[in-house]
């Protein structure tokens, strides 16, 4: 400073005086940052732990081993070569007599009903499949593992507390006693629940699978992807590389940015009004779901694609234009290949969002009980998040763990999509 007296104290000394305080502030600031990230990650971990701990048991299923006699009389099947007959056969009777054989002294309707409920309603599927595959089984006796009833399954997994008074649990003392006998005979075991991953929905929690929902989601996403990727990329290229700066393109730009933030439920309203009520497309169809999600993800895809195009340095365009390439040749030959990884990443992120979307699908009737795995985009279908929503609303106790298990499956898909995006980004990250 111009003031002479102050030169006695060099500014450095003055600076050093305040240094302690500043260092402390620095440390505090850093800690806030770390805390913020930690908090977010803790929440993430909490979310995952709570879901996985609730859901992992659904991947195992208690099964019961029975000696089943494919008695033609009981089954009401004359010719096991005729699939029609085999499909419609009365497997319940066979199963009932099989379990009666294990506990021959059970008498009376009430007791027997209790006994039958040790077997799942879906056990007949197992028999049907066996007989269809091997018609020669008719008349023979085989030892089979069939799914146990939901209550038994719940007790085995510890979801039903055996110590509660009988009136407060779904399973009777008598059933518990049978269960223990079966356990002793090693007729009761937990096996990996392939069924959960390979079948459609069911009203019996122990038979319910998510394959139907997975296929539904897959079809919906396929429609979404087939439409939104080409549309999105074309729109992005137009806006980024060709569009003159005029009113129309200005409006389009604002529109796209705005649509990206429009609540998804509003897209549901749109889908209901346009695709179902106006165009008369079928309710609950993956096609309609895909169309709605296309409109929803399109802005995301366009924005990501534009960012990818922007990141291609102008020098590449200049180079191509400079040797006399037309704008379209410049784009297709040079810009697009360089922007493609970025566009794919954007696409994956858009798809991930679409995969987890529920609200718009509620509006277009994809909340339905659908057992058959859809075979085409016009067949009625649900999607994974909707299946979660549905199961969460089911009274049966067994669905609680299924809900969490379905969430695990959905998260697994999402995580792998995210991971793919990250890998793509890493792999092709380019610095000019």
């Amino acid at each position, binding site marked *: 400073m111009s003031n002479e007296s102050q030169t006695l104290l060099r500014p450095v000394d003055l600076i050093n005086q305040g240094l302690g305080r500043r260092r402390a502030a620095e440390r505090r600031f850093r800690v806030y940052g770390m805390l913020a990230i930690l908090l977010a990650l803790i929440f993430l971990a909490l979310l995952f732990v709570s879901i996985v701990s609730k859901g992992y048991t659904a991947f195992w299923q208690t099964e019961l081993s029975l000696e089943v006699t494919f008695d033609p009389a009981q089954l009401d099947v004359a010719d096991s070569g005729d699939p029609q007959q085999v499909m419609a056969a009365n497997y319940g009777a066979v199963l009932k007599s099989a379990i009666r054989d294990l506990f021959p002294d059970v008498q009376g309707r009430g007791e027997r009903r209790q006994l039958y409920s040790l077997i799942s309603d879906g056990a007949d599927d197992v028999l049907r499949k066996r007989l269809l595959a091997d018609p020669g089984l008719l008349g023979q006796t085989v030892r089979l593992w069939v799914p146990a009833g939901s209550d038994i399954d719940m007790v085995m997994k510890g979801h039903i507390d055996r110590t509660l008074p009988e009136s407060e649990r779904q399973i009777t003392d008598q059933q518990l006693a049978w269960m223990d006998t079966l356990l002793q005979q090693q007729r009761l075991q937990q096996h990996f629940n392939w069924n959960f991953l390979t079948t459609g929905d069911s009203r019996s929690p122990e038979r319910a699978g998510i394959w139907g929902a997975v296929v539904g989601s897959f079809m919906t996403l396929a429609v979404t992807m087939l439409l939104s990727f080409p549309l999105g990329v074309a729109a992005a290229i137009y806006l980024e590389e060709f569009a003159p700066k005029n009113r129309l393109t200005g409006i389009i730009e604002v529109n796209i940015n705005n649509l990206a933030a429009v609540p998804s439920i509003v897209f549901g309203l749109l889908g209901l009004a346009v695709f179902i009520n106006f165009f008369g497309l079928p309710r609950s169809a993956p096609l309609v779901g895909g169309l709605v999600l296309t409109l929803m993800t399109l802005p995301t895809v366009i924005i990501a694609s534009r960012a990818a195009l922007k990141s291609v340095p102008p020098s*590449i365009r*200049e180079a191509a*234009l*400079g*040797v006399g*390439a037309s704008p379209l040749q410049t784009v297709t030959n040079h810009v697009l290949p360089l922007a493609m990884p970025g566009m794919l990443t954007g696409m994956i992120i858009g798809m991930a969002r679409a995969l987890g979307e529920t609200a718009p699908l509620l509006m277009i009737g994809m909340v339905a009980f659908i057992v058959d795995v859809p075979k085409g985009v016009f067949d009625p279908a649900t999607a994974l998040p909707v299946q979660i929503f549905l199961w969460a609303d089911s009274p049966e106790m067994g669905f609680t763990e299924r809900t969490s298990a379905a969430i695990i499956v959905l998260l697994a898909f999402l995580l792998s999509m995210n991971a793919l995006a990250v890998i793509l980004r890493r792999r092709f990250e380019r610095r000019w």
Partner: protein
Amino acid sequence: MMDRSAAPRATVDREVRRTVGEVRVENPRIRCNDINVYYGSVHAIKGVNLDVGRNEVLAMIGPSGCGKSTFLRCLNRMNDTIDGCRVTGDILLDENNINSREIDVVPLRAQVGMVFQKPNPFPKSIWENVAFGPRIHGLARSRAQLDEVVESSLRRAGLWDEVKDRLDKPGTGLSGGQQQRLCIARTIAVQPEVILMDEPCSALDPISTAKIEELIDELRQQFSICIVTHSMQQAARVSQRTAYFHLGDLIELGVTEQIFTNPQHKLTEDYITGRFG
């Protein structure tokens, strides 16, 4: 213009913005009449008249922001790619006004090639970098012909020996100087008539710079070359005629030697003698 023969130091005053020196040549390759360029409301080039002769290197010098690049980019309509840039005036390339709206810029840019300040090879193989132009313009019918074009272009750019064993390696893997020569090879592969170079050496090391300068000298045998440079030394070394720009005006144009040894405009003199820049 002024009285030049007797009193060599009779320089033209700073305030005068008419062009000093002879702007025209006989039988020009490019003739520019009254070129004005506007970026929105910024008047970046102000009524410039200038000829580019055949088989000559024309250097453009001037302080930063004076409009050298802008002017250069008029000559192959690269300014079209900039929003809000407006170019008026006539630019005659062999009698065709290439500044008219009707002209298709694609063949034009093949005729008037451009090399940029920063080497910008495509992130593709060396071979594809060079073959791209001939391919889109249909200059070769077969792969063999293309191979030939690639080789001859690389040879003329003095790069063949250095890259002939790795034509399929990416062009971005070359050193800066090599990349710039690759860009030149890419440009001459489409057999242009004029080559525009915008500070082609400013990102290069001395040795690479020397190579490029040699190359320019050779290319002059066949092409007309306009080169923008910041380095007066470079202008002196490679060009036959030099144009000095100042704030959008073409201040002086003349034979290079004379510009550097005996500038006639005060602004040129100030610049040459390092009073600024």
